């Protein structure tokens, strides 16, 4: 029963059998999993499903199983950010989106594996070990929401929630052949999302189809007074599901097809763009001239914010705690033993970038670049309804291939981070395959214009079959 399925398919199964049976079949499948995509599995999900069967529920997700990234606070369920330092931490409160999902009747199957504190592009930096790509278990699923993408691709959850700071939803969506959306900054409350880089990140849904993305957005998006950066919008995402791109103007920024791009990826993306033309859209090449500075600016801002965000993990109040004769020794040891090498690297670099004497040279300069990057998008969107690029310059790479070379790993984010700097929405969806590995097409929209990119993605999906392919043994 469990496996690759859309929300409406699951609903049929629940009507046919029961929510309990559906949830049980997913838990069963997770038990047999070989991809290490969950950090915590909720056995209690069964009872929640029974409750829905017994009492009924008229929420839009009644009985629908869902997986949640391990950096989103879930009351009574371990929330560790895949880090040793949060080992054993059980939050006393639900994140805003978890409240919304529960109200809608969703059943939380478990928490998904991720790069430690969402710092990575491969899910290899997890304290619980890497998640394997369901399409090729020697390869990474992408990151940092690698677990959230892999469970959907492997049929271990029909839908999931991730978070995207610099591509963390879109990258694994591309590598795992699923759909992933990073909404406009401010669309979804971050209350309960454990911060890595506050000014950049958004929670985003992952699913097997665009329609499920819209369904989830209608539930989790919207104003929340507990997040000061959250914005009031009156959007109905389901309304965007129209198979019609006639007259749509697509910009294709040349900088996103730069050095190091895999020819198969380049071809697949161009094929997709040309296909849009067949569907009635028009395209034109364009330029976002400050793209080449985006990566450096992104990493400086993200690491600076991270160095401060992660200061609270000192063993005093929750999570892992080391020993020491006094507080300073205990806290230092806790942090030395609790954080992995990539997290330490980013804390150190961020601390450095904010230090007196370097602050202006790095942090302040990065903020200026950010403004320029934003301006690039503003200018482009005066002319185009959306922009299309490869999500990732390559298909999923091998596990271990880039572990020793952080810079190479950072470079993989080159097409996703400018979007976070600008705060605009962007979706990744499957647009082809190379050697059995999925390729992702990225569609970028204007601020708060998820409608256009969902419409484009939906139209593409309706007229192609890339999204129907599934990993061999998972089928």
């Amino acid at each position: 029963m469990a496996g690759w399925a859309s929300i409406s398919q699951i609903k049929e199964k629940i009507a046919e059998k029961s929510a309990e049976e559906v949830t049980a079949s997913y838990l069963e499948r997770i038990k047999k999993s070989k991809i290490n995509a969950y950090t915590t599995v909720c056995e209690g999900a069964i009872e929640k499903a029974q409750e829905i069967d017994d009492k009924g529920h008229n929420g839009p997700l009644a009985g629908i199983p869902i997986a949640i990234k391990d950096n989103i606070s879930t009351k009574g369920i371990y929330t560790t950010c895949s880090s040793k330092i949060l080992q054993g931490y059980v939050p006393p409160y639900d994140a805003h989106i978890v409240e919304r999902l529960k109200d809608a009747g969703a059943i939380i199957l478990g928490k998904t594996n991720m790069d430690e504190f969402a710092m990575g592009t491969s899910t290899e930096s997890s304290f619980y070990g890497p998640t394997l790509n369901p399409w090729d278990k020697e390869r990474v699923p992408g990151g940092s929401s690698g677990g959230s993408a892999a469970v959907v691709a492997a049929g271990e959850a029909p839908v999931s929630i991730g978070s995207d700071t610099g591509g963390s939803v879109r990258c694994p969506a591309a590598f795992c052949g699923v759909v992933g959306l990073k909404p406009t900054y401010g669309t979804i409350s971050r209350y309960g999302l454990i911060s890595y880089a506050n000014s950049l990140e958004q929670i985003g849904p992952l699913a097997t189809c665009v329609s499920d993305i819209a369904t989830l957005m209608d539930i989790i998006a919207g104003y929340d007074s507990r997040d000061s950066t959250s914005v009031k919008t009156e959007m109905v995402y389901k309304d965007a599901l129209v198979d019609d791109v006639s007259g749509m103007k697509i910009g294709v920024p040349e900088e996103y097809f730069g050095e190091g791009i895999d020819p198969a990826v380049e071809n697949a993306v161009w094929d997709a763009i040309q296909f849009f033309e067949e569907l009635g859209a028009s395209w034109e090449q364009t330029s976002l001239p400050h793209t080449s500075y985006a990566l450096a600016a992104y990493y400086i801002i993200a690491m600076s914010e991270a160095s401060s965000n992660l200061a609270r993990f000192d063993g005093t109040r929750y999570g892992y705690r080391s020993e020491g004769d006094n507080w300073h020794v205990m806290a230092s040891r806790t942090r030395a033993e609790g954080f992995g090498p990539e997290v330490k690297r980013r804390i150190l670099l961020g601390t450095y970038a904010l230090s007196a004497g370097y602050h202006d040279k790095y942090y302040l300069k990065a903020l200026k670049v950010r403004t320029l990057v934003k301006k690039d998008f503003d200018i482009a969107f005066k002319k185009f309804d959306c922009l299309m690029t490869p999500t990732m310059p390559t298909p999923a790479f091998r596990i271990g291939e880039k572990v020793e070379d952080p810079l190479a790993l950072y470079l993989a984010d080159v097409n996703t981070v400018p979007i976070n700097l600008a705060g605009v929405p962007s979706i990744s969806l499957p647009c082809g395959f190379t050697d059995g590995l999925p390729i992702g097409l990225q569609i970028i929209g204007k601020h708060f214009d998820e409608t256009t990119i969902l419409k484009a993605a939906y139209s593409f999906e309706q007229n192609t079959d890339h999204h129907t392919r599934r990993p061999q043994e998972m089928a």
Partner: protein
Amino acid sequence: MMVYDNPDGVKIGLEIHVQLNKLNTKLFCACSTDYHNSEPNTHVCPVCLGLPGSLPVLNRRAVEFAMKVGLALNCEIVEQTQFHRKNYYYPDLPKGFQITQYDFPIASNGKVVIDGEDGEHIIRIKRAHMEEDPGKLMHIGSIEKSKGTLINYNRSGMALIEIVTEPDMRSPKEARRFLDKLRSIMEYLDVFDGDLEGAMRVDANISVMGGERVEVKNISSHKGVEKAALYEIMRQKNFVRRGGKVVLETRHFDELRGVTLSMRSKEEEHDYRYFPEPDLVPLRVADKVPEIIKTLPELPDAKRKRFKTQYGMADMHAKALTSDIKVANFYEEVAQLVDPKAAAVWVADILKGELNYRDISVDAFKVEDMAEIIRFVSSGNITERSGVEIIRTILDKGGDPASIVKEKGLVKVEENIVTKAVDETLEENPEALQDYLRGKEKSLNFLVGQVMKKTAGRSDAKTAREMLLDKIKKLSPK
């Protein structure tokens, strides 16, 4: 005009943390601020505990309070709020950073007038910024003997306003006067209750003779600031006299021993790595200034002026009555009921002294009782001394003026009883009378004493003396 020449070149600047404890909720969460009588860690939530994933939301009322403070200190108000993170590690700081204001404080460039060494003296206010209070560390017994440190986060996230002055105070006395004035203003604004523990904490920057400044941290009382400054001035002067050179450093004030001790030199100072708090958005406040100005109450200086003109009282009384808003309000209520001039004397000179002596607030006394006592005295029913006695009795044991007068038999005896006592006294003590007439002043005191004795103390000495003199004049006209 008297001029203070500041012989030691003393310069004192203060940084005062004032808890806006009249707010109902904390600065960034909805937790109640009413924690003073609660168990530790009961007024906390994910936000003020800094739990992973929690986010701050700015308390708008706190911003209004801070604007009031800024305006009352004659400051300019910033266009829009801006918060920064001040990064440092300490167990009382649950997020590992403090949310504070950095280069855009809510208020700046103000001034406060105090009664200085040589009359009115202006203390410039550099800035006033908003920030959150950390939690509180506690130890079982002394720090040295305690088995560990306990942390109470009830205080964590309380709204503070930090007021920074220019180094314009020229003596410890002026520093104390400034603090008294500041507290007075804060209480006038009804944003602050100074009686609550930890409501005001002060850091003092002190230098002498153009030397480097030394910062004395975390002094909890106005008296403590005065004492610390006195000690520090003496220490620095002696140090310089012996050929030393004062260096920038931070010192701690040991309140029990009355000395300051070195904590760290400037080289060891933190780099706080300030950067804008990404979880808060700017709040435009400039447009609200006119509205806030309208809500500002009459402040101490204005009230003092008005009391002098409206009630015709001496400046000394006006000052005493207006330094504490509660006393000022109390006085004005009494002045509605009885002669305002008499009320000024009674409240400023007598009641305030009795309250200070007992270290209690004017809340402990009823307006009606004060008015009644003044009425009793001015109608001649009781003596002034009895009036004082009633006040003391009410403060110490309770009760109301009428029944105390009755219980203690304080009603002034009829004049004819005094006349009778005077006659008898003069008859019974002819030697004393003769002595007095021969110029021995002391004999009159003896005679007054005798009259008082006969009336069992129910007449006052002033009346007895007047009546005796009257009688003596009649007996031996010159």
